[in-house]
């Protein structure tokens, strides 16, 4: 395990250890429960679901709902399934995460290694910006996007997500770079490295752990966003969450719960994967950055 599993000095007795395992397992069950409900019901035929017993394993296993959710469920007037929206989301998330992470890294670099008067106040303002409730920015943001000719486009959505992500990415990188030795920067300056060379050659190669935290955070938030996606996307750039909402919220007619669950899991798959794959670096990244005083 790559996370620093240190040699804890704490010793515990056998009974206590058993209890600890029990508690940990119990909570694991608690955390798994909703996912279990979703998975189990996504592989059941609809009549088994409406017949009750949401916790029961399927009597007949079917992967039809998954196929339907992906490629043929009714989203709008076209039975396209979620797949085209999946790619819309990817096209939005990748640049937005990349740009906000790079900007956050540069900001953190400037705020810790190139300090100037009032830099702390500036950082405070950026941090406070994380707290703005998104509901209040919808209308003015729409106007700004319209003025910039980015309304209803993927680039507009990228901009929105970058704007409201910078605060967090800056926070992460600033805390991380704050403990990065300033002497290294000075040594590089004397060696003749410029502003960007220092960043690129000296700081960035050591930024892996915090970049993982920033990417996980941003990826999750942007992928899961619904409000901005619904409000600022055009017909051909609606992200996955909006499509999922259209699938699940359809107001009239039979609710195909199994398809809804399959769709929901599909919509969540990328973020789940990110957590499972990169999660092991996550604690390490937090350790290196955001929980340091």
């Amino acid at each position, binding site marked *: 395990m790559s996370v620093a599993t240190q040699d804890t000095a704490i010793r515990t007795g056998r009974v206590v250890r058993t209890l600890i395992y029990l508690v940990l397992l119990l909570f694991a069950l608690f955390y798994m429960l909703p996912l279990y409900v979703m998975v189990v019901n996504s592989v059941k035929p609809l009549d088994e679901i409406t017949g009750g017993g949401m916790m029961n394993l399927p009597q007949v296993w079917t992967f039809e709902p998954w196929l339907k959710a992906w490629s043929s469920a009714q989203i709008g007037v076209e039975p396209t399934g979620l797949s085209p929206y999946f790619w819309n989301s990817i096209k939005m998330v990748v640049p937005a995460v990349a740009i906000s992470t790079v900007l956050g890294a540069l900001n953190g670099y400037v705020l810790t290694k190139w300090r100037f008067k009032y830099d702390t106040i500036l950082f405070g303002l950026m941090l406070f910006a994380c707290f703005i409730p998104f509901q209040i920015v919808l209308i003015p943001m729409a106007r700004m996007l319209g003025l910039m000719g980015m309304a209803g486009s993927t680039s507009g959505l990228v901009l929105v997500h970058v704007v409201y992500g910078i605060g967090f990415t800056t926070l992460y990188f600033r805390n991380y770079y704050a403990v990065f030795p300033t002497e*290294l920067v*000075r*040594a*590089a*300056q004397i060696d*003749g*490295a410029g502003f960007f060379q220092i960043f690129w050659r000296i700081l960035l190669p*050591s930024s892996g752990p915090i970049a993982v935290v920033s990417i996980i955070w941003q990826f999750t938030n942007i992928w899961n966003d619904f409000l901005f996606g619904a409000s600022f996307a055009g017909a051909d750039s609606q992200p996955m969450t909006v499509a999922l909402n259209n699938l699940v919220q359809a107001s009239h007619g039979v609710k195909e719960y199994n398809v809804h669950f399959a769709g929901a899991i599909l919509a969540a798959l990328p973020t789940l994967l990110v957590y499972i794959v990169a999660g092991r670096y996550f604690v390490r990244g937090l350790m290196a950055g955001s929980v340091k005083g």
Partner: protein
Amino acid sequence: MGFLDIDNTTKSYGAVEVLHKIDISVEEGEFLVLVGPSGCGKSTLLNMIAGLEEITSGEIRIKDATMNGVHASKRNIAMVFQSYALYPNMTVGKNITFGLEMHGVPKPERDNAMNDVAKLLQIEQLLDRKPGALSGGQRQRVAMGRALVRNPDVFLFDEPLSNLDAKLRVDMRTEIKKLHQKLGTTIVYVTHDQIEAMTLSTRIAVMNGGYVQQLGTPQEIYDTPANIFVATFMGSPAMNVLPAKVAIENGKPTAQVALHDGSLTSLPFSQDNMADWAGKDILLGIRPETITDEDAADRKSTNIAHMTNRIIVTEPAGSDTFVTMEMGGKDVIARMRSDAEVQAGADFSFAVNMEKAVAFDPETETRIVP
């Protein structure tokens, strides 16, 4: 005009002036040590020479060219940092040649330079390792290698030995001195360790509170400290400074110093001008090694005073034995030969080499110049 001139230079942060009108001129090949307690401004001054901090007023020149506003990389200087500041993501070789690469030196030349330096510092076998895999001493060598490879006009060292253990520190100290003698480069070296300052330097600037307290050769600094701060900062154990009154005895000025029982002893000055201070209070500075047992008194000295005083504590240190007594109401340390028969609580007869004693004006705390 020296090789490196620090001319009337000050540094302020906002309204707070932290360095006050510093004037130092360093000749080519000199080894200047800036020494002082932490917060005295020595590192700030070094950073200003390096171009890492701006100069608020005044001028810094290297080879007669002003360095004000010149970027650190364009000053042809190299610096060795306290933490070594090795780039953790690069190999030792890369660390050494990074500066050359940044200055656009072609790769073959870089490799040659790297090999030369590695040979000089005996770190050839480390070139492919990452800094994380090196010991403290090895890192230190690499850091020096990185500075050497640039062949700069001035080397700057910022407390380079403070992270090493005691033994290694002494070894590296010698190593640096050898390098300096071999290469003859100009060095400015910051330390808070007065022994490093004394052993390495050709000249020392003792700094405190943003002022250069004294600038001079190690000997000058040691023997004729400009003031009490310099006197007590340089030397270990520190110089004893005790209150005394000047009296004229037999036409010669003497210092009247109270012993442990309140009785006065007379210590005659070698400096005749102390007669001007007759009847006044002064502070008398006596280095511990100038108070000895009678047998160890400096035979070349023309002015040995004698006194008997009670020993409070003895501290055998192997080569010497330190003895604490009370003089002028202060603890005073004397340095005995290790075989001197001293015993705590007993009275003992001391020889004081008054030729080396200095006197300070108690008001200004500056040395009364003969």
